[in-house]
């Protein structure tokens, strides 16, 4: 493998990491900061993608599609929080798991009922299609560079919200002791609805942005959900920095594992079975990474030590 190809693959890994962060960002907020296990996060991602596809199909405008994705996911998030999640903060994680599992069923099948079973069309705007040549001769799609930019902007925004604003501090306080923060005069219920809606909107945004280069279909949210959890847990729950670094690690491991492991096995067997064996190990790579990180650091890379 030539050095330039390797460099390109490293870049691909980092890029896919940022994309993963974008997908995980909303979950970081809801899970990491509010401490709520929201399995329905993937469904909110799907709702964003479907809303975008529907609006893009009707109006032809990608900008409007993004707005629609944000709005639809935020609205769905707020509604879900008011009707369901609100009753679950005081319960243990298990009730949250079951309730949000039920929400997956409802939202997925509801979406299918509305939009049918066939994948939808959503493409990137013409202005962002095509490639640029980076220094070193790497040809790279413009749209992916735009995704990197959005991902980094979201990371900074979240970090600022969480660490630097009173809203962020109060939310984290509520995560420690809801009753107490309310007794100090903070309307924590309203804050939580707001945060949940923001998290949902981020999921919707990711769904729309990533949906333009992937397939928009029912069920698209579930693989993302698992990956997003992997990312957050590797980074350490509640840490935005951790989520970003976790995402980059996962992106790199996944990409380089898929590329390098088959090469490695080619040293031992014929190309066809090397490709198969290598890719078999590659598909386990991120889980091996996660288990390894947790065994080494039981609360993730940047999680709070007790």
């Amino acid at each position: 493998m030539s050095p330039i190809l390797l460099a390109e693959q490293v870049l691909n890994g980092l890029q896919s990491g940022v994309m993963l962060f974008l997908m995980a960002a909303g979950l970081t907020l809801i899970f990491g900061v509010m401490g709520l296990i929201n399995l329905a996060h993937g469904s909110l991602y799907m709702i964003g993608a479907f809303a975008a596809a529907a609006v893009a199909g009707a109006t032809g405008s990608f900008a409007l599609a993004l707005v629609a994705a944000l709005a639809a996911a935020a609205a769905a998030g707020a509604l879900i929080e008011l009707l369901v999640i609100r009753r679950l903060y005081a319960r243990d994680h298990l009730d949250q798991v079951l309730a949000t599992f039920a929400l997956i069923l409802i939202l997925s099948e509801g979406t299918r009922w509305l939009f049918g079973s066939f994948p939808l069309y959503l493409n990137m705007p013409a202005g962002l299609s095509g490639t640029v040549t980076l220094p070193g001769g790497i040809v790279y799609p413009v749209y992916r560079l735009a995704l990197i930019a959005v991902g980094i902007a979201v990371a900074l925004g979240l970090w600022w919200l969480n660490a630097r604003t009173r809203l962020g501090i109060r939310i984290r306080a509520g995560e420690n002791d809801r009753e107490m923060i309310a007794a100090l005069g903070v309307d924590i219920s309203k804050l939580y609805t707001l945060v949940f809606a923001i998290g949902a909107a981020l999921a919707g945004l990711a769904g729309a942005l990533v949906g333009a280069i992937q397939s928009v279909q029912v069920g698209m949210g579930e693989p993302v959900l698992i990956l997003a959890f992997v990312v957050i847990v590797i980074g350490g729950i509640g840490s935005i920095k951790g989520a970003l670094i976790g995402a980059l690690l996962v992106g790199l491991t996944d990409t380089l594992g898929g590329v390098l492991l088959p090469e490695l096995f080619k040293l031992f067997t014929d190309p066809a079975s090397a490709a198969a064996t290598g890719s078999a190990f590659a598909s386990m790579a991120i889980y091996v990474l996660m288990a390894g990180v947790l065994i080494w650091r039981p609360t993730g890379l940047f999680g709070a030590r007790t």
Partner: protein
Amino acid sequence: EVKIGMITTLSGGGASLGIDTRDGFMLAMEAAGRDDVEVIIEDDQRKPDVAVQLADKMIQSEKVDILTGIVWSNLAMAVVPAATAQGKFYLSTNAAPAQLAGRGCNPNYFSVSYQNDNLHEAAGAYAKSEGYTNPFIMAPNYPAGQDSLNGFKRFYGGELAGEVYTKLGQTDYAAEIAQIRASGADSIFFFLPGGMGISFLKQYADSGVDLPVMGPAFSFDQAILQAVGEAAMGVKNGSNWSKDLDNAANAAFVSGFEETYGRLPSLYAAYGYDTANLLLSALDVAEPSDAEAFRAALKAAEFDSVRGEFSFDTNQHPIQDIYIREVIKEGEVYTNKIVATAIEDRSSAYVDECSMN
């Protein structure tokens, strides 16, 4: 009174395939208008254990005579051996894994669609006939994916620029596209069913790499093409059916399907339709309760297939022509047209392993 049990995927991510299967099947059933045939349809959720449970239910409490409808090979492998072991007939509308064509063939099992390798073989034959000398081939790492690449290689037979297995369910193909770019390939063959194919094609179209692309029909089928859009234009795909196949049965099927359901039919609909017609033709001759006679009637395949000439080989898999289609745009709709015949009278690679010779 004959009962037919259809087990197919009607909910969740893979539902579109099952829905087309069902709609094609029912189109033929309703056209026949026979009130002595009852079809029971159930949703397998794409889970093997649910499919097994449904098969048990249909056999044990509904007492069906014939089962059909399963889309996925892994579900077929869960249901078919047990069902045929209990003396039921199974007619496959899609999935036709190698085991069931070879060592595991069974007198009560018929594949009406194809043998899984066929469409990949067509792409391989096409690559050879086009004179490609350095294709890059790619499929997900699971049995069907491995069969796919083997099928392609079987009829292509030349050098490869690269052979890559991706993860099942992968959504980002930047790394593979970079490998393709660097490999010096002169063409690409890929098998990535469902959403994986959509993702790959969108990303490929935006990558600046511009090589001819081939694949089996699954990734370029009617339902999926609309989601891929412009990115699929010009792609060559191997198929045993196309909506522009010139025969009377096909014309009637395509217009009837469009009229009834308001959309163009897919491959799966065509297989469903053919399966129903095959069944009906056999029911005209014999009752399923008379297994010997019914089997013979099925095997005769006295029906008008939408694929034109159609007969069964000794392993009860089809012998048929396999074509190459090209993705085109008709008005606002993306669809396919046949551009070549890849292999004539193709049976399957495993027929000699089947003991029913």
